[in-house]
């Protein structure tokens, strides 16, 4: 009896590992692909949101009467159109959300909590009428003092966003409310004893700014609700099943009433795992009895959709003279935005995860401020805490006069290392990426004046989760693979490759289709670097189901027992005593006769994928600093990361490169700039400075493969780790170029120039 592989394939692979053409590629290049704003329905209305211009205020009244009377206005919704919800946390991507907060985030109730907070939404016959209607809505506010900065928000007497917020995780519970939603702690060993054994201790504080995911496609959807309450939603999202669940819950509908289709997606990076416009569009569509399309402007994306948090992190690391770390401690406070739920817990879990340490403690605080609620952004939480740790480690290496890669090698986590958050690691690639970095020509290349080199490593867990897959064997023997995770980074291609491999058929015979929510069972979103890992696992299992059925049909045709056949390379052959008795049957042969042998052949899998393997990476970067202007140029960049198994190496490299580029922006130029009025001053790509193509060098990549033993093809998931090391690698490179260090992101020209000036004033410049 043949089965698809369940352990990492040791056989020679035909499709997995190949750089096959991307099935969605041509449509995306030619403009044929349909994104969130590209579906048009007859009779569709335009939906627009009225947003708060105040960062913090109590809503005294909302008068929509004049707007409603404007010809062309078909529906208006406000807080009165959404039922209040009880406090209940549910997973959203890798983060948790609370419906009590979500219902307030999609439409303000008692208060507006940030500039950009929705207060009302209008559906009208065109955009001009909708905009005019927004101006006619009168909102009466009682202005409240606001707090933007995380340090300020934690001080006693800071303006309170939620008057009933009592810090969780503190014993005894505080008696007074504050902006600190939660305290979390992870600890192993005895850090006090560990620090006593240290010969050298580095203790530093770091600050980071919020950064936006920066997807090029803004949030967009079109909703339609029929007279009998059957609803359809077309939306750009990383997870349409999750959108369905949230919308149904927020609107009080049965899940079966709502079908959600994921459009092509122009980037998500974690930011399209939550709902903003979607429940509002559905509510408007129901009220207006017409389809409603809503598309955010870029300004709205910045003012109202989640960035990654800004934070402060304090790190203390002690080591012996030979570079063995004796104790490590980190304390961090992350901005959650207007509602609790920053990824600080993951920041605490990841901070020291690349290392095998006896004594570790991490403490985190989740802090609300008058900013948009944060959302997931590639490896949520990890880039911040690991940035701080990797910078401190670099200073430790400098002080100990040990090569920074050797210091990391000496302390690297390996198979069997117990993580601070509990589990023991399986096989992981930390040592392998460090060794590959050491052996890379980049690491020993000569540097010019005002140039510096930095290295840093990074860790991310990766996740599995609920995943369904169906394989329909078509009448001609070709197969359709139906999966439920939107394709962001080439997962249609990788799924097709794994399916072709599992079935032993030509890749051209497999077409991957992303199902809408009515076609497959619940499938968690594309996030946590899980799509290729979990989808591949489900597809492989569905292929096993197909193979079982093919064998059974062939046995029926040959009139021999089912266990007397074998499956090999797309053919069923008689086996054992019957070997050679009948000519082998191809999938096409069996498919043609399927009607006569029991009906269509369809393989299914519905799993909760387990065994995701962490991916570790090490980056090397060279920078040059213009000492007269503080401008930093990235000259050379190499990403080295363990992929487990690269199903499609080009897309793995693309993820490595993309993460590095986003990290370069995080390190050097991206930040939210707020005025004293609590309003964001740079809500556009001109002044929110993401790197452009000419700002970055060609990013070199090295794929390390330490297979994940729990995946049929050894896959780990690689999409998030690449954004973890860049900030520290660049900070370390700048430190080496200048002989002085910066402790605040972004390391923009004014900050760098100031640091140069201060260093010269001290007369301690000692450029390397």
């Amino acid at each position: 009896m043949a089965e698809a592989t369940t352990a990492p394939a040791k056989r020679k692979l035909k499709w997995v590992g190949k750089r096959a053409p991307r099935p969605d590629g041509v449509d995306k290049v030619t403009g044929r692909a349909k994104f969130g704003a590209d579906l048009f329905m007859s009779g569709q209305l335009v939906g627009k949101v009225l947003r708060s211009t105040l960062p913090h205020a109590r809503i005294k009244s909302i008068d929509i009467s004049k707007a409603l009377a404007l010809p062309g206005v078909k529906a208006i919704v406000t807080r009165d159109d959404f039922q209040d919800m009880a406090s209940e946390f549910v997973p959203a991507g890798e983060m948790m959300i609370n419906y009590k907060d979500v219902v307030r985030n999609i439409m303000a109730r008692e208060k507006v909590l940030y500039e950009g907070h929705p207060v009302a939404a209008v559906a009208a016959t065109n955009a001009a009428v909708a905009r005019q209607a927004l101006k006619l809505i009168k909102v009466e506010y009682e202005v409240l003092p606001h707090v933007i900065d995380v340090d300020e928000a934690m001080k006693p007497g800071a303006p309170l966003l939620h008057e009933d917020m009592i810090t969780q995780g503190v014993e005894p519970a505080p008696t007074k409310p504050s902006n600190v939603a939660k305290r979390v702690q992870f600890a192993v060993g005895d850090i006090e004893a560990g620090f006593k054994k240290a010969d050298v201790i580095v203790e530093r504080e770091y600050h980071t700014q919020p950064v936006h995911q920066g997807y090029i496609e803004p949030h967009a959807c079109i909703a339609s609700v029929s007279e009998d309450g059957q609803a359809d939603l077309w939306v750009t999202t990383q997870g349409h099943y999750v959108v369905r669940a949230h919308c149904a819950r927020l609107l009080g509908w049965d899940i079966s009433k709502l079908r959600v289709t994921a459009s092509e997606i122009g980037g998500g990076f974690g930011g399209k795992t939550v709902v903003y416009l979607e429940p509002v569009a559905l509510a408007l569509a129901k009220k207006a009895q017409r389809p409603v399309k809503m598309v955010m402007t870029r300004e709205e994306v910045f003012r109202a959709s989640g960035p990654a948090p800004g934070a402060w992190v304090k790190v203390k690391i002690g080591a012996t003279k030979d570079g063995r770390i004796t104790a490590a401690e980190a304390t961090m406070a992350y901005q959650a935005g207007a509602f609790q739920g920053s990824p600080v817990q993951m920041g605490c879990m990841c901070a020291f995860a690349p290392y095998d340490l006896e004594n570790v403690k991490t403490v985190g605080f989740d802090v609300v401020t008058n900013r948009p609620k944060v959302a997931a952004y590639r490896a949520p939480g990890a880039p911040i805490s690991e940035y701080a740790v990797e910078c401190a480690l670099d200073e430790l290496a400098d002080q100990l006069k040990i090569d920074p890669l050797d210091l990391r090698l000496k302390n690297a986590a390996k198979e069997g290392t117990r993580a601070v958050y509990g589990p023991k690691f399986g096989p992981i690639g930390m040592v392998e990426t460090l060794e590959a970095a050491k052996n890379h020509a980049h690491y020993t290349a000569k540097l010019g004046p005002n140039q510096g080199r930095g290295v840093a490593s990074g860790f991310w867990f990766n996740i599995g989760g609920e995943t369904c897959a169906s394989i329909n064997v078509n009448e001609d023997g070709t197969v359709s693979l139906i999966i439920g995770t939107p394709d962001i980074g080439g997962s249609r291609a990788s799924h097709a490759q794994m399916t072709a491999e599992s079935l032993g058929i030509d890749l051209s015979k497999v077409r991957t289709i992303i199902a809408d929510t009515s076609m497959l069972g619940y499938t968690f979103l594309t996030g946590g670097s899980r799509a290729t890992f979990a989808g591949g696992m489900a597809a492989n299992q569905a292929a096993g189901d197909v193979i079982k059925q093919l064998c059974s049909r062939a046995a029926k045709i040959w009139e021999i027992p089912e266990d007397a056949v074998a499956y090999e390379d797309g053919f069923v052959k008689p086996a054992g005593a019957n070997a050679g008795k009948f000519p082998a049957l191809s999938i096409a042969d069996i498919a043609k006769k399927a009607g006569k042998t029991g009906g269509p052949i369809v393989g299914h899998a519905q799993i909760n994928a387990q065994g995701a393997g962490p991916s570790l990476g090490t980056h090397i970067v060279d920078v040059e600093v213009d000492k007269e202007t503080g401008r930093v140029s990235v000259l050379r960049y190499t990403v080295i990361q363990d992929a487990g198994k690269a199903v499609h190496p080009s897309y793995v490299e693309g993820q490595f490169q993309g993460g590095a580029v986003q990290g370069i922006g995080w390190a050097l130029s991206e930040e939210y700039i707020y005025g004293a009025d609590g309003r964001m001053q740079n809500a556009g790509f001109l002044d929110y400075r993401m790197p452009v193509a000419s700002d970055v060098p060609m990013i070199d990549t090295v794929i390390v493969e330490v297979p994940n033993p729990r995946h049929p093809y050894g896959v780990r998931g690689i999409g998030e780790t690449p954004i973890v090391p860049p900030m520290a690698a660049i900070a370390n490179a700048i430190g080496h170029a200048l002989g002085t260090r910066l402790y605040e992101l972004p390391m923009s020209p004014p900050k760098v120039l100031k640091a140069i000036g201060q260093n010269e004033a001290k007369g301690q410049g000692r450029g390397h």
Partner: protein
Amino acid sequence: MRYEAPETVDKAVALLASMGRKARVLAGGTDLLVQLRAGVVEPEMMIDIKKIAELRSIAREAGGFRIGAAVAGAEIREHADLRKAWPGICEAANLIGSTQIQGRASMGGNLCNASPAADSVPALIAAGAKVTVVGPAGRREVPVESIATGPGKTSLADGEFVVSFLLPPRPAHASDAYLRFIPRTEMDIAVVGAGVNVTLDAKGVVSAARVSLGAVAPTALVVEDAAKALIGTKGEAAALDALAKAASAACRPIDDKRGTKEFRIQVAGVIARRTAAKALERARKV
């Protein structure tokens, strides 16, 4: 909103005069269309001046060049004679936006948008360029630096618009340069911009110079002290340092999202010095 595209200056003046402030003049539209979309301006009429031949031509005049206000950056880039005589103006005009924007963006629009950070303006001021303005009262010719009066504000009267720029004749050993500081490499707005125009005598001594700075005050500055620091020198390090110092001293910047006051003052000197060095190097070769 009405869209009009007159083919003569007179028709454009008549339209503009009849609508007053309810009309906006459209050249390349690379600022205006963005403002329209953002709801910053809501004009009743857009008067497109690109159909007027005079506004779209580059011609020799009085030993210099006359450049139509709506000539696109890409057209300036392709004009070999202009580029040879005024490389600084051309490099400044070619910094207005990306390659795609260059197909439309004009120096007339760049000037009348009156951003303190406009790239072509310091280069035009350093060149000593004049602008021809037309309106209901006829034509007048004024220096470039007299147009912008503050961020988004100009000295143009109701019904007036800019027709063309006139660049003076070029003596021997004269050239110019424009450099700016931006945090990115492209797709950005000047945090500091500097235009420097120099003329050398036969011995290589600076006989005339003009220095202009952008983005460090409400309008582009003419920095006479910086020019004086160069005149009578061969552009040695000491002269360039004095120029840098004078440039920094002239700055009256604000702290904003694009840079701090302190940073702009310091970097203005650096950029002015680099620009002057580049202009001098060019002047020595022609």
